[in-house]
């Protein structure tokens, strides 16, 4: 083989080799830590017990990103939703409920996470607050106060799409303190294949209660990070485009919200970036949208469905 040929072969092979090494490192990263722990124990630097502990923690840390599977997320979401529906009264108007579910489930179909374990479901909260909550897995709540900030169906769709964004990006689960999950894995509580004893169920339920507390206090009191809100707004724009709505509806809704929002309020005023900041952030990411010009049919059904709001 000529020298130039071997150079060529090398040219082609090197990226492949680098790729292989990178993928091997990703796959084996955890093993390196656990092997180091074993070596540490063998050389007497640490005890075997300590080594086992380090191994477990390393495995746990590796898994914290994915240990909450869609079925577990579903049970977390149900309980978060239960806490919300016990704090707020539900608005019982079948036509309005059916309407936001039809719109919301249509929007969810074109999101980045169209299917969750239990699916997407929506309720209106009988509250004047400007508020909305998305429980993990797709149980979504919108207040009457927030729906009053929507002058068009496109604007209402924007509100639902933003909440679907929080679900699709799993923001709720991110609010759970990592230490809770890590400890539950390290102690084997989240491990599958064993039948848990009563005391283990009790211990796991305590972890569960803590996780629910982390999520509900984030949703109700502290709010998500600005980065998460921006991500949900951007996600909403994409969902609206895919579904055939005008994303300008989101900006219109934020402008109305700005006017209606009471400073110091215990709702979006407390948990979300100011509407103005959200508008600026959306404008930075997208070129401007045409004004919302809904068809008469769409406008009419929106008015009809939410007449009592």
């Amino acid at each position, binding site marked *: 083989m000529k020298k130039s040929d071997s150079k060529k072969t090398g040219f082609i092979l090197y990226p492949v080799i680098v790729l292989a090494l990178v993928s091997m490192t990703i796959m084996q990263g955890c093993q390196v830590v656990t092997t180091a722990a074993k070596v540490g124990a063998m050389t007497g630097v640490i005890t075997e017990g300590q080594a086992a502990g380090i191994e477990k923690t390393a495995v746990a840390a590796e*898994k914290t990103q994915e240990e909450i599977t869609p079925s577990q997320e579903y049970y977390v979401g149900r309980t978060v939703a239960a806490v919300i529906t016990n704090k707020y009264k539900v608005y019982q108007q079948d036509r309005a409920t059916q309407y936001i579910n039809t719109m919301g489930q249509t929007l969810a179909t074109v999101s980045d996470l169209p299917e969750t374990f239990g699916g997407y479901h929506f309720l209106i909260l009988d509250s004047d607050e400007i508020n909305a909550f998305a429980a993990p897995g797709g149980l979504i709540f919108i207040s009457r106060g927030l729906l009053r900030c929507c002058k068009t169906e496109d604007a209402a769709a924007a509100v639902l799409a933003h909440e679907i964004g929080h679900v699709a990006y799993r923001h709720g689960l991110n609010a759970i303190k990592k230490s809770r999950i890590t400890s539950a894995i390290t102690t084997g509580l989240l491990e599958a294949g064993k039948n848990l004893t009563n005391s283990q169920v009790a211990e796991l339920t305590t972890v569960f209660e803590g996780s629910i507390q982390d999520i509900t206090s984030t949703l109700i009191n502290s709010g998500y990070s600005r980065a998460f809100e921006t991500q949900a707004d951007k996600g909403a724009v994409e969902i609206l485009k895919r579904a055939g709505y005008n994303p300008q509806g989101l900006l219109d809704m934020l402008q109305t919200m700005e006017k209606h929002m009471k400073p110091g309020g215990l709702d979006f005023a407390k948990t979300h970036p100011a509407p103005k900041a959200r508008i600026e952030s959306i404008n930075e990411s997208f070129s401007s949208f045409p004004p919302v010009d809904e068809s008469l049919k769409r406008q009419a059904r929106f008015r009809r469905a939410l007449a009592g709001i």
Partner: protein
Amino acid sequence: MIKRKIIISAFTSIVCISSFIALAYAAANMSVQVRETQIRATPDYFGKIIGKASYGDRVAVEDKKDGWKKVRLKKGGLTGWLNSSALSEKEIKMAAGERGVKETASSSELQLAGKGFNPEVEREFKNRNKEISFQWVDRMEKINISQVEKQKFAKAGELTPEGGR
């Protein structure tokens, strides 16, 4: 010298290719990770529904397109398209004797699911927090809009979709 380089490169590429083949093979079998999902004739939600799959069902992936996977059900052999969001690379095993098997247990060395936050934990939570009612949660979960109704809604509202997944 050159020969040695070639041999080393060739060996490394064989290792690399075989590990990729191994990875590809591992990804070829997947599990349904949602409670229930529809198998469609084409890779989109407008596609005709030809069957359904439930939590834990194993499938072999034969093709993929725009967020959809063409699968063959291990049980029964039905072939059709499932949205990727309904599928997991992890194996989900059912725990024998569990009440409501479809919504519980799953396991494998990679996976920790059913034994974690599950109906048993929810029951214990309810015991401890009797003041928290799940009545509305149970009610809202029953509100399901069919694909036909969604299409009617889009058409009646004169929505002009860019097309999604």
